[in-house]
């Protein structure tokens, strides 16, 4: 943690709060993430992990508190603008464009990130720069074999990877990854995680990864936060965190 202090703070959340009636999925959480800092977030079902991510991406509005990106207040900024500024999230259940090929899926994100929403008459095949970038991403994420396949015919593992590839196409500053391995087989799990971690490291990104598989968490991350009932209850290296009795108690008892 000591080396984080030299790096600039990327995102700061100050006393975020979101209540749904009696349920308090996010209860006055403060969070600071520096560039290149990778956090894993574990917790029981309904502990508020997804709600926290959605607050950061702007899909839901906080009841209280504020979020800053590089010191600039972004609490009221809509999700598509936040995505442009570098806060990008993958979805728990894969959200991909089923009726398009893998290449087109990634290409859409590349066009969007380049701000080319309204170039009406330029053939997509002629946009060399974008196509090259898409091709590079496809290669990077090991999707070359299914480049022209329609996404709806592919398995969950592929869809997850495509989802992640689209996020990288947005040139993110911070990546919020919601359960990258849920609903995916054991072998694919490691492949997806490897791809993800390598890319995060290579681009020196900050990331919050929500993950249920504690085994993976221990292997892959340097810093873990345990969340329970809308609050952070433990934070530190995975080894340290998972040796605490209360954490095990909560994780085993409440499910994960």
């Amino acid at each position: 943690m000591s080396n984080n202090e030299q790096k600039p703070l990327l995102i700061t959340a100050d006393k975020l709060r979101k209540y749904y009636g009696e349920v308090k999925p996010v209860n006055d959480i403060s969070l600071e993430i520096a560039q290149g800092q990778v956090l894993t977030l574990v917790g029981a079902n309904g502990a508020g992990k997804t709600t926290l991510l959605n607050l950061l991406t702007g899909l839901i509005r906080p009841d209280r508190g504020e979020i800053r990106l590089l010191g600039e207040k972004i609490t009221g900024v809509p999700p598509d603008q936040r995505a442009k500024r570098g806060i990008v999230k993958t979805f728990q259940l894969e959200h991909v464009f089923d009726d398009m090929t893998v290449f087109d899926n990634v290409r859409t994100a590349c066009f969007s990130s380049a701000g080319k929403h309204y170039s009406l008459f330029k053939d997509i095949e002629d946009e060399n720069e974008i196509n090259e970038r898409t091709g590079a991403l496809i290669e990077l994420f090991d999707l070359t074999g299914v480049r022209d396949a329609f996404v709806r015919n592919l398995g969950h593992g592929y869809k997850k990877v495509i989802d992640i590839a689209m996020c990288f196409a947005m040139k993110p500053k911070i990546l919020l990854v919601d359960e990258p391995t849920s609903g995916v087989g054991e072998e694919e799990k490691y492949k997806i995680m490897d791809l993800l971690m390598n890319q995060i490291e290579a681009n020196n990104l900050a990331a919050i990864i929500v993950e249920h598989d504690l085994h993976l968490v221990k292997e892959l991350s340097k810093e873990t936060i345990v969340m329970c009932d809308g609050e952070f209850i433990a934070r530190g290296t995975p080894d340290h965190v998972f040796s605490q009795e209360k954490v095990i108690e909560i994780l085993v008892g409440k499910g994960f």
Partner: protein
Amino acid sequence: MNTALSMTVPSVGRRTWITTLIFTAIVVVLPFFISGYQRTLLQKGLLWIPSVFGVYILYSLLRQVHFGQSIFIGLGSYITAFMAGKYSVTNELMILLPLALVVSIVVAYVLGIFIMKRTGFYFAVMGIAVTMVFWSLVYKARTITGGSDGISHIKNPSLFTVPLSDMGLYYFCLIVSVGIIVLMLRVLNSSFSLQLRAIAGDLEKAESIGIPVKRMQRLAFTIAGANAGITGVLLAFSYNYVSPSVFEWGYGANFVQSAIIGGVTSFAGPVVGAFGFINLEFFISTWFANLWEIIIGLTIAIIVVTVGEKGVTGIVQTLFSKIRCK
């Protein structure tokens, strides 16, 4: 939308351009071999294509049913009727076409703000509603628009002050239609259409990768409107007559029906649909007199139940691919 029913939009390739070229060649040559009446039918079919393309864009890319194309056809037609007919200001196509274009773009953009508030059923209904509003305004404003009598005696158009003959008008319509087809094919192959498809596919994800959903939806609606506005001008010149019936919702529905007959899984769909609809209308009403509405209605109902939005071109495509597999 249900994945089992999902459809795909092909990309514009060399084959599409060759087909377009062949199509153009045929319609260029055809008038020399057919009667004057058949030529007007052909001309009407040509003029329908851009409007059907508007419906096609909204349907195949955004999955919305656009019943309101008649609004913009009507606007274009009445602009022409006023300028070249009633008030005799000008019959110059090079003034009328840009004017209709600007008016329909402005109207479409403003209407889009309201109509695109919600999608699906609500979008379709608002499309019908707006046409009916225009219909009623035109119908009631008798002193200006002539009410149900419409406006007749529209002067023949001139192009760069040269008056156009009937044949000249046909070729001008041809140029405009083919021009719009080419433009639309480009639009369909642009990043814009890719992103529209993304919006239809998964709105949440589209937003999360930074696509400005609302604005792009509105732009698609505006493009459809602009297409129809231009054809409205030429349709008015073709008929020499405009009546409030251009604003009837059934007329707008005809474009949707054309698109469905043609099919939205192929770029040829709108072309086939426009010609198919107009010829069906003509032949059925000559052969079976009163039965034409029943036949058209049932045809479309059956097409939708059996092959969905694939239409005639979709059926042909499947047949071809089956033959090729064997």
